[in-house]
């Protein structure tokens, strides 16, 4: 066993002297995470914000192209309400450009606030334009979001109208004085807006179902349905103070995804280096020492495993402290999953190394395999947006099970009870890969 340790530690020692390895295994995934979080919104600022906080932690949602053709209170309000929708990222541009781009197929749809919208809306009949190409008949997920904003705006406009009518009828505002009427309307509009946003009489509250608290809250509430429903807000608030909304951010997707991908990349590359040693006959010479082939291979595997573990821990730490991703919600579950995933990854590395002949082949096949596995497993994008066959494909790759488990821990705040299956499946992958890989690996 001691000999195995020596071989393993030797592997790590060689690695720490390799500066390019540090760049590739640590800095590159961090750079990628940085870019994704810059582009799709970071996690650090977003976590404390309330649902109406808006811009701070913008999620990896949908872009809405918006052209505003008039300057009015209502047009401003449309922009404001749309920007507050956390699933939308609003990009403003001129109407001609927007239409040209929709027409050219660059963007799927755009929304126009046309000239005269404010006036028309106050008469009760305003309309926004949804610019689409013919043939794109399917309902786009952005459409109901815009509809919902319009509903709230309509409630606000209608309320302002009712208020002004009441005020003039009762003589608080002189109906003959347009300026006074306008001032009253604006004041009422603003106040109605606060009611529409605030805890209005008929409201919707979203509770992210997360945290182990979920289980205990459910248990505590027992058979009384009303109590069950009421018990949840507390747990949701404890889970994440997000005012009932919880959107995955670019930083979260990036930190999880690139950690999973680059750890696999790291061990697969390390497995390739086994083949260099075979080509250079280092392995054969090692066997002249008082160690068995089994011990050497065991040591190499242990070294690769430890390497993956260290890399994963460092990337998780970077995610936690640099990118503000909440990795530490269930340390036990996280540890189990990390160990299982790194074991499966190491197994994949040795399997690959045993299937090819030269290091050159290993690096070419390895890179391809790693990138494809990462894509299939949802390391590059959330699987909720891909087609059904692709979601099913994720169930057949270790990266898919790892991502699913990490999402459970980081986003859903789940504990061991939720990820044990992921851990078991990854352990299964690891055993399968090791078994086949070690059996067919050749030293000469």
């Amino acid at each position, binding site marked *: 066993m001691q000999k195995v340790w020596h071989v393993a530690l030797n592997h790590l020692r060689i690695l720490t002297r390799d500066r390019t390895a540090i760049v590739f295994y640590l800095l590159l995934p961090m750079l990628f995470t940085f870019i994704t979080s810059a582009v799709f919104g970071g996690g650090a600022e977003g976590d404390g914000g309330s649902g109406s906080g808006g811009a701070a932690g913008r999620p990896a949602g949908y872009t809405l192209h918006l052209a505003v053709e008039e300057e009015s209170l209502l047009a401003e309000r449309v922009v404001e309400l749309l920007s507050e929708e956390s699933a939308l990222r609003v990009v403003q541009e001129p109407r001609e450009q927007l239409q040209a781009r929709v027409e050219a197929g660059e963007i799927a749809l755009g929304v126009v606030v046309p000239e005269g919208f404010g006036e028309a809306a106050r008469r009760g009949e*305003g309309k*926004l334009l949804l610019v689409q190409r013919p043939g794109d008949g399917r309902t786009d997920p952005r459409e*109901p979001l815009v509809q919902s904003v319009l509903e709230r705006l309509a*409630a606000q406009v209608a309320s302002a109208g009712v208020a002004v009518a009441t005020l003039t009828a*009762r003589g608080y505002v002189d109906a003959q004085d347009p300026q006074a009427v306008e001032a009253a309307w604006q004041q009422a509009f603003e106040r109605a807006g606060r009611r529409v946003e605030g805890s209005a009489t*008929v409201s*919707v509250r979203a509770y992210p179902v997360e945290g182990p608290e979920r289980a205990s809250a*459910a248990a505590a509430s027992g058979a009384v349905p009303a109590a069950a429903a009421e018990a949840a807000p507390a747990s949701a608030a404890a889970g994440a103070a997000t005012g009932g909304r919880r*959107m995955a951010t670019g930083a979260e997707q990036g930190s999880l995804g690139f950690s999973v991908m680059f750890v696999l990349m790291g061990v697969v590359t390390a497995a390739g280096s086994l083949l260099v040693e075979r080509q250079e006959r280092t392995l054969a010479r090692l066997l002249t020492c008082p160690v068995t082939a089994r011990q050497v291979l065991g040591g190499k595997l242990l070294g690769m495993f430890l390497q993956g573990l260290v890399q994963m821990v460092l990337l998780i730490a970077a995610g936690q402290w640099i990118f503000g991703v909440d990795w530490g919600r269930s340390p036990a579950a996280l540890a189990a999953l990390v160990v299982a995933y790194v074991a499966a990854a190491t197994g994949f590395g040795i399997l690959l190394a045993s299937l090819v002949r030269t290091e050159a082949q290993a690096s070419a096949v390895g*890179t391809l395999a790693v990138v494809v596995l990462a894509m299939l497993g949802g390391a590059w994008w959330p699987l909720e947006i891909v087609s059904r066959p692709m979601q099913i494909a994720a169930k057949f790759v270790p990266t898919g099970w790892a991502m699913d488990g990490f999402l459970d821990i980081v986003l859903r705040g789940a504990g061991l009870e939720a990820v044990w299956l992921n851990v078991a499946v990854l352990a299964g992958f690891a055993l399968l890969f090791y078994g086949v890989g070690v059996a067919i690996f050749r030293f000469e």
Partner: protein
Amino acid sequence: MSLRRLWALVAKDLRIRARDRKGYLLLLAMPLVLTTVLGFALGPVFRGEGLAQIPVAVVDLDGGELGRTLIDGVLRGEALAQMLQVSEGSGASDLERMREAVGRGQYAALVVVPEGFSRSAVAGRPAQLKVYTDPGQSVRAEVVRSVVDAFAAQLMRRQVAMATALEMVTVRGGLFAMLSPTLVPEVLQQVEQAAGRVELRLEKQLTAQRSRPLNAMDYYAAAMAVMFLLFSVLTVSKTLITERQDGTYPRLLMTPATRLEVLLSKLAGSFLVAVVQFVILAVTTRWLHGVVWTQSAMGLALVVAAAALAAAGWGTAIAAISRTGNSAENLGTTVIMVMSMLGGSMFPLYGMPDWLRAVSKATFNGWAMEGLLRLMFDGAGVAQVLLPAAVLAGMGVFLSGAGLLALYRR
């Protein structure tokens, strides 16, 4: 300088490339596989149907009229039939079970109509619909929430109108005004008359169809071809350094070949490898996935030639600032990955923040994609791709000039 010698040098490098089996895998199989995976995986997203069939659970503890309207009229309504897949449970036990299932990601969201909801809403008392969401599918969950929101907003309208009117009366007339016995009936009447009259609509406005809609397969065929152009030139320009290390370079100089000829041969070799690779990828993706590259062969030739030149420039420049073949490969890979991410080879830049689109204009990928996408989707001809082609050519001339100069002086 002799063209014949130059060609002999280029031919030598091309022969070496052609024998490199790892090269085929990396430079041809990899972009093809990636194009296929990306094209299939992101196809629905590009078509705007990414969120079809969102699994939603509902539990109606109310049984009143409003709850049924929400479930049968809205969630199961015709407008959302393609988007939502509704499963309804009943009672507290289903509520618990379904909420657990949301936590496991089985449903994107669970909509709960609490007991007494209809009664409270009709009477103007606070009434709250609950949406339990899965943070692991937040985009889908948010869509469900917005649907329920819109429904609530309709119900809410009368109540907000009433409250706002009363509030405004106190603001303008003081608390005393509230004592008027006719106030509430009058406001109620106003609400009945006016509140329902405001209707804001989202009207569809269809554009004329000028060119093809974007699709993921074509997009990523271009994106990967662009990215792997860089990888392929790197394999050639790397030899600028490795041939020094292994002594091939000094031996080449003992032949009649001059230093300039050797350097230029690498540039020409990179260019040719890039062009050949692009042609193979273009033909294969066309045949395999029916990718439509262009309607203007001249335009495509122009963009590809300019892109190959620019790629050769990047390769030369990277070789010029690296000391060993390994460091050239590592630096090159890093530069390529970062440029690809920022330049649209990994995800489309449409609708991305302006700073990103500005940054993309400093990358090889940004301009090459610009040219190719115009050809693919805008039906562009030579005139419309002159700008990207010119920028790429300029990039190529500048980088290869600077790179060759630095290498020549070594």
